[in-house]
């Protein structure tokens, strides 16, 4: 008769990898009878003997809560494999041994494959194989690293040994008090039933009956063991009366204590001190009162870093794209005879101004993702999520809302889909509603360009203020809606797993930075390119034949300029009632980055002279390289200046900042676009002092108004057209009201 080996273990412990390593290609995949759970069988050649290996579904215990648990338990109890290999994650011994002790109690010869030992060693965990084997009743314990096929030979040898000399671990969880007494009484009764002893171990059966395990009870009923079941029912009542607790919970509780004792004697955890240090830091950063200010201070630092430190590189990319690339493309077009052709305008004022205007912000995004990557990799972002989650629950929002809302800082589209993790429809709608106020990554270039133009070195504060305002508007809206139209039960309590702090890994951070920035680059080459070309066309078509010919019309008299001009008066109370701002907001509905590309195109037409390079190519390239070197030095300067700037937040403290290139760092017109914005906003606000206020109002509108079409379409798909329109209307109204409030109050306070 063919001997059978079963592989059992918790999910994700490398069971399938070991199964593949043992059986190679000699596998058969099917389903467990009557179940949709996959059944994998394979053959292992042991000398002359062929052994059947069965991969059991991953399970944490042998109770009857899931189909996987029932399949595993029924297979071991009814099919009685010759031996069971318990695959254990060495990095999480406590959790895995809970199942191992149950397997041993079933009376099977068990071999422990201590897998993932590479990870456990890296974490400084030392497991005594001898000690563990001893505490588990003398069963073999073998170290393996399944994905590297390490320890496989030892495992095969252990299998051969167990098949030759079957040895069952002689352990039994020690149950104390009234529970222990009742188990003992039942066990004695079971030992009198020889028909049952063929299938079950008395101790295991007694605990299962007391747990009220329906599978076991049905099996006993079919065997006519009514008297035994009656005894178990009485025993359960006595235990409940004696302890006030469900016997099943008492059994699990004492089994955990039993496992703890095994782990205590077999496992050394030399890194307890590190965990304690993490805990000490957590006491401060997740503190009920200090946690939130610390989070906001760190976010302020992130935006200082993002806006100011990336500034020199932003300038350099601007010089490179709008200078070098622009000059030499113009030269090239002229060289091939397209100098005065509409193609020249399309490429120079459409593609380069539009796409280039957005690509300028790649350094900003890289620095943002660098800062977020460091926070994330160090383990702080988990703490930030914890702190924010607490605030959201305090405001009455659902606990799971925090995830979609924080995802909203990246992009609103996945944030809307992330609401699927919420079961309640009201909570889903409310969360999606609020996620749109979380400032997505696409809005960042807008804040940066306005911040640099109007606030210079304090531009990071504008960026921070926008993110902060988004959170505040979301929380207020959530609070009001939760207590009016979306009234539901209070949020449920929760526990959050906080990973230990660690030193960020540069390679991981670089991967994150690159992957996230890649998305932006792809968008620039697709959506923004398309919009730039379409916008160029609309700006080239005259609104009326009297206003000029195609591609010769003034931007304000173009179709785009005139239509935008019709809407512009609405924004007059907010200080930015120009056709340029309005037109940018309209195209921004397609994608928020388009606001910057539209402005670049509009103002490029006004500021770019038809420039053709006069310096030799090599000289021009050398100049770009020198500028790059200067950008590196200025970046270092800005990074160091974060320290005095942060200290200067303390009242009456003023520390000087580094200034490597005084003239350069004081220049206001960081990019060509910024200079145009200063003039344009001073004009719409009515004074140059009012320009910055109008700029802030514009940014507030950008933050709060309709998310992009992709997000709107995701909302329609998830919640229907009616809800989508409600969202659009609400965001437009609140954005307009907030922008007007900022401009009007700002004028009273500052002018």
């Amino acid at each position, binding site marked *: 008769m063919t001997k059978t080996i079963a592989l059992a273990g918790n999910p994700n412990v490398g069971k399938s990898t070991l199964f593949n390593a043992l059986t190679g290609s000699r596998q058969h995949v099917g389903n467990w009878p009557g179940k949709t759970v996959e059944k994998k069988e394979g053959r292992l050649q042991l000398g002359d003997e062929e052994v059947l290996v069965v991969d059991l579904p991953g399970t*944490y*215990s042998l*109770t009857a*809560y899931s189909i996987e648990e029932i399949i595993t338990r029924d297979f071991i109890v009814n099919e009685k494999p010759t031996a069971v290999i318990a695959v254990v994650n060495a990095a*999480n011994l*406590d*959790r895995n041994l*809970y199942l191992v002790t149950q397997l041993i109690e079933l009376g099977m010869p068990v071999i422990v494959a201590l897998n993932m030992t590479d990870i456990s060693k890296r974490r400084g965990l030392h497991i005594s194989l001898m000690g563990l084997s001893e505490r588990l009743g003398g069963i073999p314990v073998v170290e393996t690293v399944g994905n590297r096929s390490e320890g496989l030979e030892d495992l095969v040898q252990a299998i051969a040994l167990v098949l030759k000399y079957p040895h069952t671990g002689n352990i039994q969880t020690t149950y104390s008090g009234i529970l222990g007494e009742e188990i003992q009484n039942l066990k004695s009764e079971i030992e009198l039933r020889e028909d049952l002893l063929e299938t079950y171990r008395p101790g295991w059966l007694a605990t299962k009956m007391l747990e009220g395990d329906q599978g076991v009870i049905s099996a006993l009923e079919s065997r006519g063991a009514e008297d035994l079941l009656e005894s178990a029912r009485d025993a359960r*009542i006595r235990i*409940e*009366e004696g*302890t*006030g*607790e*469900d016997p099943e*919970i008492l059994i*699990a*509780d004492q089994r*955990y*204590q039993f496992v703890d004792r095994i782990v205590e004697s077999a496992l050394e955890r030399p890194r307890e001190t590190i965990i304690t240090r*993490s*805990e000490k830091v*957590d006491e401060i950063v997740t503190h009920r009162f200090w946690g939130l200010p610390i989070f906001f201070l760190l976010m302020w630092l992130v935006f200082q870093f993002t806006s100011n430190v990336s500034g020199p590189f932003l300038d350099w990319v601007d010089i490179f794209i709008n200078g070098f690339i622009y000059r030499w493309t113009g030269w090239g077009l002229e060289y091939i005879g397209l100098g005065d052709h509409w193609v020249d305008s399309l490429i120079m004022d459409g593609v380069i101004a539009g796409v280039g205007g957005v690509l300028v912000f790649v350094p900003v995004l890289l620095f943002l993702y660098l800062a977020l990557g460091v926070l*994330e990799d160090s383990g702080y*972002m*988990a703490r930030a*999520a*914890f702190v924010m*989650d*607490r605030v959201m*629950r305090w405001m009455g929002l659902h606990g799971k809302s925090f*995830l*979609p809302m*924080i*995802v909203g*800082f*990246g*992009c609103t589209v*996945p*944030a809307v*889909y*992330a609401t*699927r*993790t919420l079961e309640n429809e009201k909570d889903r709608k409310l969360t999606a509603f609020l996620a749109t106020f979380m400032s997505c*990554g696409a809005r960042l270039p807008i804040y940066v360009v306005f911040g640099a133009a109007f606030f210079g070195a304090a531009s990071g504060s504008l960026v921070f203020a926008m993110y902060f305002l988004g959170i505040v508007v979301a929380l207020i809206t959530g609070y009001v809606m939760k207590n009016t139209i979306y009234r539901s039960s209070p949020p*449920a*309590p*929760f*526990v*959050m*797993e*906080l990973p230990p702090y660690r030193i960020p890994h540069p390679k991981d951070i670089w991967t994150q930075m690159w*992957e*996230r*920035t*890649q*998305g932006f680059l792809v968008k620039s080459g697709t959506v923004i390119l398309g919009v730039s070309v379409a916008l160029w066309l609309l700006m080239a078509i005259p609104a009326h034949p009297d206003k000029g010919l195609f591609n010769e019309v003034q931007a304000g008299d173009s179709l785009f300029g005139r239509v935008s001009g019709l809407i512009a008066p609405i924004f007059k109370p907010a200080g930015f009632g120009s056709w340029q701002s309005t037109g940018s907001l309209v195209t921004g509905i397609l994608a928020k980055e388009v606001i910057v590309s539209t402005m670049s195109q509009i103002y490029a037409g006004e500021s770019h002279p038809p420039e053709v390079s006069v310096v030799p190519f090599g000289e021009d390239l050398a100049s770009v390289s020198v500028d790059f070197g200067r950008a590196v030095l200025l970046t270092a300067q800005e990074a160091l200046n974060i320290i005095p700037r942060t200290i200067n937040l303390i009242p009456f403290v003023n520390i000087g900042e580094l200034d490597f290139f005084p003239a350069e760092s004081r220049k206001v017109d960081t990019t060509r676009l910024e200079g145009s914005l200063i003039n344009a906003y001073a004009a719409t606000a009515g004074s140059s002092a009012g320009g910055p206020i109008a700029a802030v109002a514009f940014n507030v509108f950008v933050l709060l108004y309709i998310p992009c079409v992709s997000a709107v379409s*995701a909302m329609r*798909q*998830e919640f229907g057209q009616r809800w989508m329109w409600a969202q659009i209307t609400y965001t437009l109204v609140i954005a307009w009201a907030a922008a007007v409030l900022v401009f009007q109050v700002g004028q009273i306070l500052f002018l």
Partner: protein
Amino acid sequence: MAKSKLRLLLEYVEESPGGISLQELARDLGLSISQAENMLEYWVRKGHLQAVSPAPDCAGCASGSKCSLLIDFPSTYQVTEKAKLHIPEKRLPCQ
């Protein structure tokens, strides 16, 4: 009557409406973090707690789970409606 550690843990979570970290929970109940985690998993299996997946379902988005904008979030255990009905029925000896 002394309560089981499992029960104490569930009650502790239920009485923390502002949320609690796993570390705080373990420290306050005198457990190791992995012990506390195992006990939470027990209540998840019993349906009294729900493990909230840190990865949002982005099935409708073209980028899906490969979205470059997503940030990793920690796992969360949340009390379910079932937990509020956890008190075992007291049966009288005559029943």
